């Protein structure tokens, strides 16, 4: 999963996602499954991931570009899904693509309507069948880099289900549906509008073929529905919307058209990234080996654990390369417990009076926070989880998998598993989040994790970052400038960062050619994830 092969694609199964969206407390999004044969399931609302998402924000912490939105409209059975898949396939190594289907946005129905729908007496092809405002607001959120929770529509029950499906983090969004170009509010959001043109008789033929084979319906029923709803809707709403399209694509044998579209998208994306490359928050652009005047600890506004004898002793064991793995784990757990206890002091409290068993009133305090959760930045943030759990035993803990690209050193977001309270914007806005990572060196992973939380609506001053070590000459000053309200709680502060080879690659110049340059903290603790887990 961590392999960043450029042309490898993983497919997120949408069934998996939707079952988890609403229920469990620390609901997890699905694993990104590597899929070597490049076959893309023709599923609706699919997230496709190839090699991790590079930074989508600049050094000052702000998002630098919207997602690129392509709309694919056309008659029923005209080949829209095919065109969408072709586009995804030929785009190749685009980080994340979300295919958003109009079908998800059918309106909630009354019991009477559900009954009619089961008798095929509901016009699903009319624009009124679709919740256009919701469609537009979900798309607008996704385009602006926010999370969204789209409705789930069941064709079996002919009803919108109570669960929703959480989507976040696409750089390209493809919306498809017969009426994708119909609504003006939706059209405003598109960067590229495609209409798939197909002869009516061909569409009808395909429809009969598909519905008899896949849905077991009778030809009579299909023709009845076609004449009653499909054809009028096509003539009145679908075909006229073609006038809004930038490109009209034939429904079959359309390689040239697909090629044109992809070339256009690639050029658009390249233009954006060129425009922003200088501003991107990539470590090697803000760190240099000759950085001789690291900022003072005071100016970094860090919350450092009181420097006690025991703390110094704990760090001595953790930093020593000759400490046993057993010792490393034990003292890591002790340190993370202390860090979490200290970090908890950042949460607000309010007065509370209780009655004791001696039947006396006691005036004390209680936590004044509605929703608190933890999120560890994997892998090394996981090393803090045991201590965190000792202090906060019953709160959800999510995770983010951020790894740095072997060639460029830029951080890549591989997986987002957020607690349910963060997936929903209205709870995220009130939540307090503890972010866990073993150290802040380049700060790249921390930067990305904080940005993910802000995208979800978490308040900056409600984020408490818990970490063992911070290098004051590292990326922490960039982090501070970008997110001044985030609180950073750490155990000790190191002075330097230097360039080095990843452990295990000793040779100067590294003849194997496989190792990569990394920034290491001095004196540091080594690779904390390796020492804790391997």
């Amino acid at each position: 999963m961590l392999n960043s092969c450029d042309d490898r694609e993983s497919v997120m199964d949408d069934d998996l996602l939707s079952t988890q969206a609403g229920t469990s407390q620390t609901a997890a999004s699905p694993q990104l499954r590597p899929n070597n044969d490049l076959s893309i399931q023709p599923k609706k609302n699919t997230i496709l991931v190839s090699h991790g998402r590079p930074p989508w924000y600049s050094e000052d912490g702000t998002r630098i570009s919207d997602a690129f939105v392509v709309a694919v409209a056309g008659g029923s059975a005209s080949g829209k899904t095919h065109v969408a898949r072709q586009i995804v396939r030929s785009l190749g190594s685009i980080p994340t693509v979300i295919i958003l289907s109009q079908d998800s946005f059918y309106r909630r129905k009354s019991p009477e309507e559900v009954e009619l729908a089961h008798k095929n007496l509901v016009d699903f092809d009319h624009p009124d069948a679709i919740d256009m405002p919701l469609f537009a607001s979900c798309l607008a959120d996704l385009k602006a880099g926010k999370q969204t929770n789209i409705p789930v529509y069941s064709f079996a029950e002919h009803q919108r289900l109570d669960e929703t499906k959480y989507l976040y983090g696409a750089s390209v969004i493809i919306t498809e549906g017969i009426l994708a170009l119909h609504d003006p509010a939706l059209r405003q959001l598109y960067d590229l509008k495609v209409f798939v043109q197909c002869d009516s008789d061909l569409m009808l033929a395909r429809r009969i073929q598909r519905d008899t084979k896949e849905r077991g319906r009778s030809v009579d029923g299909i023709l009845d529905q076609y004449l009653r709803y499909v054809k009028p809707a096509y003539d009145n709403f679908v075909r006229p919307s073609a006038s809004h399209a930038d490109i009209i694509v034939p429904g079959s044998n359309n390689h040239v058209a697909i090629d044109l579209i992809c070339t256009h998208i690639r050029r658009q994306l390249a233009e954006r990234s060129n425009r922003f490359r200088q501003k991107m928050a990539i470590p090697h652009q803000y760190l240099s080996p000759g950085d001789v005047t690291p900022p003072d600890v005071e100016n970094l506004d860090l919350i450092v654990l009181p420097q006690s004898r025991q703390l110094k002793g704990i760090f001595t064991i953790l930093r020593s390369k000759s400490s046993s793995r057993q010792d490393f784990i034990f003292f890591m757990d002790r340190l993370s417990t202390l860090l979490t206890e200290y970090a908890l002091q950042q949460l607000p409290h309010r007065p509370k009076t209780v009655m004791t068993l001696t039947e006396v009133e006691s005036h004390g305090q209680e936590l004044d926070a509605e929703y608190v959760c933890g999120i560890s930045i994997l892998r090394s943030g996981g090393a803090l989880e045991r201590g965190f759990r000792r202090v906060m035993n019953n709160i959800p803990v999510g995770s983010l998998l951020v790894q740095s690209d072997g060639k460029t050193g830029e951080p890549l977001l591989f997986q987002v598993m957020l607690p349910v309270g963060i997936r929903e914007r209205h709870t995220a806005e009130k939540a307090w989040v503890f972010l866990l990572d073993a150290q802040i060196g380049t700060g790249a992973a921390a930067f990305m994790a904080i940005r993910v939380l802000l995208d979800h609506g978490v308040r900056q001053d409600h984020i408490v970052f818990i970490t063992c070590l911070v290098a004051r000459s590292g990326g922490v000053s960039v982090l501070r400038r970008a997110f001044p309200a985030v609180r950073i709680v750490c155990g000790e502060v190191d002075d330097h960062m230097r360039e080095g080879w990843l452990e295990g690659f000793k040779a100067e110049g590294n003849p194997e050619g496989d190792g990569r340059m990394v920034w290491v903290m001095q004196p540091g603790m080594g690779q904390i994830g390796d020492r804790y887990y391997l």
Partner: protein
Amino acid sequence: MSPQAPSTQTSPSTVPPSVFTLPQTAQLEALYTIIRDKDTSRGDFLFYSDRIIRLLVEEGLNHLPVLPKTVETPTGATYEGVGFEGKICGVSILRAGEAMEAGLREVCRSVRIGKILIQRDEETAQPKLFYSKFPQDIASRYVLLLDPMLATGGSAMKAVEVLMDHGVPEERIIFINLIASPEGLRTFCGKYPALRVITGWIDQGLNEKAYIIPGLGDFGERRHVLSIAHFGSYLPFSMVRYCA
């Protein structure tokens, strides 16, 4: 944790200089509020008292000596650190002190733990030693003496007396305590000024039955579910035996 932070709750006019309290943060106060609340479930009582005990032990350990120690880090740099000095052991005053052992072991892995049982002699009304079992070499160790509630200080003073009889110098004893009464602290520290007391909270005082006010009730009973009032939905087998 800074050892000098004063207690804010009752601020008795004179806290003996050998007494160290945890920093009196809102968060710590919230922990105490939970364990004081008579409606707190046993599970929460265990969890939140353990959190305080861990902080107390961490604070107590800061009074142990360390020696400079230089180590090499995996990145090839050197780090001027410290190494822990001196052997330690725990001694819990039965039964309530036993409840602090789990917290102690979470911070000091596989530490040896002695036990001491002191009860009130019905004839003399004085605390009397009923039982003690210590590591053989206790005289050469630093002793973390565990008792969650310091009310009059009677049994704590008796315990120190027993430890000193076994050759442990007064200044090598660190008393670890959740809630203390000002009276108890004055008596205890008056008698043993060289002994260090780490306490989480200094309460208002004692009532006529010598219970700490506001206190939290009987710590041992709440931990071990001894009294009927705190029976949960099930009773562990070992507890049944205790009750019998």
